[in-house]
């Protein structure tokens, strides 16, 4: 890690000059045959280029017929440039191909050549190009420099979402045996073992028992971390990093304390011990669905009434936006939709299904079923980093924008010192941490450090002005990314933590 240095801060707001070729390269490690075949993808690219070429074009045609988003977004872009200075990877790397429009054009140029009349007739005129091996390598490199954070889609006058294009590109690459090692390896693990970190059931049981002892030592109270309890009211689905990574585990303790203090019966599941769903990152519907179905199975088997999701950004997008579609976790299925009804009849619809842990805690705070000693957080001056997938791909509560208000409300309920970061970098305009979307791997550390630059610059400003010393966030990837890159920027790694870590600090346990 010694060779990774932080780029210099600049004057905000920043629209950097272009540095063409700044991030050219081979991209992250390519998945090997074993990894790919384990999840049903071709092991490696065909020896014969023509075969790959034809397969790519065929797959692209298939996706254009299955996803309206892709079809419309390939046509609608007018190159207005609204998105051109909005991507954190562009701001951090200055590589023009990291401008969202230019990233999309890597695919759009091929779309125009093979699927539109002007591109077939006058390729030069409309910026169309043949698919070559070099073009595919360029796809692999630059579509693995997008964290699918959707910041560009906020500003596009047609709502073009680069995440949709990146997902399609990765789906195409996977379909010809050119997948990314990090994401595909993790998907293999979740199928084989039940979570992204490859923590088997018995090890998980041990970890939870150890955690109960630690919490008992710290608080003197028996806080339980139950697993596979049939008939529990709540099934908690949380990112597996919560089980042992720092600072994630402090939030897990926070959830457990909230459940304890409110007398909620809850359980984890060894079968579905992972909220994360990397199927979304690689844009593969079948994988997305298969990974999500584990949660349905666990819910049915354990007979729970509620499903609550822990602090994890992309997992909450998948849970909030996709679970009902993929698995029936939700409400409002047709009366004759037997697949979804089977589960929906079991769930308690007085509550939103699924529920975010922040919604759960905030409801309990409003019902006055929790009390806090706010002074326990007085050592912190806190700011909140909105995680991209929560901010722009989901909601909390029953009004638009609840995903911004509820976590902030909780922080203000458990702590005295709270300040905002600069406008235009929070809420729906938040910057990605730089490690989302399947890029949280050491072989992309250079990209991750540069991608974090826009957030670091704004954080430093807030530190200088308000003396902030704690940045709360509700995403396992944000937490892991920041603890890794913040020391490179000269911050203490313990400066980042979860909202429920703050809840855990201040919560008053025992009789109420």
């Amino acid at each position: 890690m010694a060779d990774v240095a932080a780029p210099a801060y600049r004057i905000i707001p920043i629209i950097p000059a272009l540095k063409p070729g700044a991030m050219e390269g081979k991209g992250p490690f390519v998945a090997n045959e074993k990894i790919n075949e384990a999840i049903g993808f071709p092991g490696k690219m065909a020896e014969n280029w023509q075969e790959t070429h034809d397969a790519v074009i065929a797959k692209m045609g298939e996706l254009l017929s299955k996803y309206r988003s892709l079809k419309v977004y390939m046509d609608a872009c007018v190159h207005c440039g609204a998105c051109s200075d909005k991507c954190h990877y562009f701001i951090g790397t200055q590589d023009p191909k990291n401008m969202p429009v230019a990233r999309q054009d890597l695919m759009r140029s091929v779309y125009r050549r093979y699927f539109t009349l002007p591109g077939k007739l006058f390729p030069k005129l409309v910026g169309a190009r043949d698919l070559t091996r070099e073009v595919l390598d360029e796809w692999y490199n630059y579509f693995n420099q997008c964290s699918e954070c959707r910041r560009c889609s906020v500003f596009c006058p047609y709502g073009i979402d680069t995440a949709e294009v990146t997902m399609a590109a990765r789906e195409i690459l996977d379909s010809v045996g050119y997948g990314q090692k990090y994401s595909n390896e993790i998907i293999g693990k979740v199928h084989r073992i039940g979570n992204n970190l490859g923590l088997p059931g018995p090890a998980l049981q041990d970890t939870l028992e150890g955690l109960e002892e630690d919490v008992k030592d710290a608080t003197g109270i028996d806080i339980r971390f139950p697993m596979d309890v049939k008939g529990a009211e709540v099934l908690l689905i949380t990112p597996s990093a919560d089980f042992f990574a720092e600072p994630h585990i402090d939030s897990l303790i926070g959830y457990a304390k909230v459940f304890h203090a409110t007398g909620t019966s809850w359980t984890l599941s060894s079968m579905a011990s992972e909220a994360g769903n990397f199927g979304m990152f690689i844009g593969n519907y079948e994988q997305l669905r298969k990974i999500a179905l584990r949660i349905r199975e666990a819910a049915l088997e354990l007979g729970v009434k509620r499903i609550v999701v822990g602090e994890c950004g992309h997992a909450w997008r998948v849970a909030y936006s996709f679970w009902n579609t993929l698995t029936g976790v939700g409400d409002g299925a047709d009366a004759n939709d037997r697949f979804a009804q089977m589960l929906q009849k079991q769930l308690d619809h007085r509550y939103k299904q699924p529920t975010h842990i922040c919604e759960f805690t905030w409801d309990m705070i409003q019902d006055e079923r929790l009390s806090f000693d706010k002074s326990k957080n007085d050592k912190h001056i806190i700011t909140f980093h909105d995680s991209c997938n929560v901010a722009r791909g989901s909601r909390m509560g029953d009004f638009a924008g609840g995903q911004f208000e509820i976590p902030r409300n909780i922080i203000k309920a458990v702590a005295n010192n709270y300040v905002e970061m600069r406008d235009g970098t929070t809420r729906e305009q938040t910057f990605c941490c730089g490690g989302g979307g399947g890029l949280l791997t050491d072989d992309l550390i250079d990209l991750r450090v540069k991608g974090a630059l826009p957030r670091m610059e704004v954080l430093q400003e807030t530190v200088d002005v308000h003396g902030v010393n704690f940045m709360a966030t509700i995403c396992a990837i944000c937490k892991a990314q920041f603890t890794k890159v913040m020391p490179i920027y000269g911050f203490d790694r313990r400066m980042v933590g979860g909202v429920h870590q703050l809840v855990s600090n201040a919560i008053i346990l025992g009789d109420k």
Partner: protein
Amino acid sequence: MSLLFAILLYATTLLFVVGLFQRIRGYANTPVPLKIPTTPAPTTQTGVVLRMTREVLFFESLFKANLWTWAMSALFHGSLALVLLRHLRYFTEPVWGWVALIQPFGAYAGITMLAGLGGLWARRLFVERIRYISTLSDHLMLVLLMGIAASGLTMKFITHTDVVAVKGFFLGWLHFSIQPLPADAILALHLFSVMALLAIFPFSKLLHAPGVFFSPTRNQTDDPREKRHLSAWAAKLESEN
């Protein structure tokens, strides 16, 4: 000559209408398997209509993105709308009251339209990022639109053409009766440019106009927990289980 123009106008209009219809049908028939509104998003259908209205009439997202681009593009599109409405007088007899009313505004809108296009082109030429992403066709399309505006303005303010004859031609054209069109080079340039624009519309980035209405990030209701959203091809996966 009049006959040639009439035929070309029929052909390009047909191409425009059929081509556009095909594209729109293509968008409408392509499934949307997942809920992907860019949030915060409206939670009701009425809210979605309002969001789309703000997007289409006021370019809400572009306003958030870049004030210069927004101003230039609002100026261009607003002016274009007025200019198009003003041209209804060539296709109606008697001219509708409100069309008569906007005539003076429509004429000056030609100038502001040109100014807006000029501003947009300046961005394309002088802002490094925008120049980088511009293709030759992006420049040419602006040139084409500026040619249409400039030739129209020339006929309005400098070398007047016989607008009564032009109107006679278009009223006849609407009923498949070919009337003489003034032999005027500027008019010919104006009409050729318009026909070129109509012809490329269904095959180019001009599809942003219908496309925005089909953009799932903008037209979806944010209600995935309340209502199960399922596309046909995704439902098929369920029956395979």
